[in-house]
């Protein structure tokens, strides 16, 4: 790998949306600053966002539901979108999707309806790019731990991340990234305490 120059460096506050367009070849380094912070992540081909990150295409191409170094995030049309070039956490989730106000009522009770949720962030963050509800599909959850038992039982359990753990992605195309820094407080995906994450974009020089 040649020299890289930092072109963007930003701390995303707890509970907030974030979006950024990467040029092909850019790297996005996501830093779990305080540990066990789920980062809900969608990605779209910048030139034609109907082509986007697809969990099933990624799982099928990889033959595994967990992501780590070397895993390639695939589009719904079968093209490589992003490649994981570094991962100090170990594995990340492709299955659990994003929390929503509505799903929270099913999971935790109707009293959670008005709590902030990742789908709210995706809608808020996507709208300036012309993306709406129909554009939200199964997302990556960086730093989130979702095992599947032999009998099919699955769920979000205590994380395996820690302060300073990172995952770094290389854009294979020009990519619009849409993130929700997860605000969930009813399960261990954020250690019951949503915290900031840092986004560092570097470019080959």
């Amino acid at each position: 790998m040649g020299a890289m120059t930092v072109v963007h460096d930003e701390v995303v506050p707890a509970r907030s949306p974030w979006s950024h367009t990467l040029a092909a070849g850019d790297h996005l380094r996501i830093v779990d600053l305080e540990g066990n912070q789920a980062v809900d992540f969608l990605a779209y081909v910048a030139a034609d966002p109907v082509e986007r990150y697809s969990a099933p295409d990624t799982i099928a191409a990889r033959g595994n539901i967990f992501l780590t170094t070397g895993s390639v995030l695939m589009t719904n049309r079968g093209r490589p979108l992003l490649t994981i070039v570094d991962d100090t956490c170990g594995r990340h989730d492709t299955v659990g999707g994003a929390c929503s106000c509505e799903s929270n009522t099913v999971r935790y009770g109707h009293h959670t309806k008005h709590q902030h949720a990742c789908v709210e962030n995706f809608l808020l963050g996507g709208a300036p790019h012309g993306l709406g509800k129909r554009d939200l599909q199964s997302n990556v959850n960086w730093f989130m731990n979702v095992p599947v038992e032999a009998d099919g039982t699955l769920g979000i359990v205590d994380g395996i991340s820690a302060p300073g753990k990172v995952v770094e992605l290389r854009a294979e195309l020009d990519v619009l990234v849409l993130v929700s820094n997860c605000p969930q407080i009813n399960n261990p995906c954020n250690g019951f305490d949503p915290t900031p994450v840092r986004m560092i974009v570097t470019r080959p020089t």
Partner: protein
Amino acid sequence: MPDTATTYGARAHARAQAGSAVTTQPTVPASSLADPPPRVPAGDVVWEETIGTGGYASRAVPRGTRVRLVDVDGDTCAGLLLHRADRPAERLNVADTVKLQWQAYPGPGYLLLSDMGRVLATLVEDTCACHDTFTGTSNPLDNQRRYGDGSAYGPTPSGRDRFVVALAKHGLTERDVAPNVNLFTGVRIEPDGAVTLRRESHPGAHVVLRAELDLVVTVVAVPHRLDPRPQYTAGPVRITAWRGSPAEPDDPARRSSPEATRAFENTDEEAGPWAR
């Protein structure tokens, strides 16, 4: 040679074709089917159609409708998508489906949930119980590599392209092709996260879905993308749908888990039981 040189001849030729039958087609009217499901009056059958290898079918059905899918030869993979008929931005969400039920492997009594915390359909019968909520359906590049042709109009179309054209007839686009469930060809997840294919269906295996809201039901019969066979293999899927009622207040599906109870509560808030 038929006489099609004139409008009169062409008309006669066209009309003479009616009454032909093939193995993969709709039965119209559906109530004329020869073998209605057990205890179902033929007059209640509203949709009867068999799709073949690479085929698709899609229909709007009112809530309460039962939709039976049969793996005729025991060797198919039926990709399934569900959208709300009256507001299709609400649709099957496989992530919420597996997460909210704490269960990734569908079987009898399993719920198919929307992205709005509601029940779209209940799996009221399932004689296969080996399905797939993880790997979705093939894309054109997959099929180009696997079978030498991934075109939507060729002999080995992708499930994605089948869904695109099926949904286009409801005014929807590729944006609406969400991750789907596969029926009759399943996967299991190993402890290290690896995905393994399971083929445990049998001739005549079936599932019956009960629509809990007004739905667009879309089915494609394409090979499972992890099926290692070099031939494009997906046997016929028979679809039979009949009138019925959505989950009654005492339906066991409502009490199968606290999450199911609340998902049905959210569904009732939207559509009944006052709306029946």
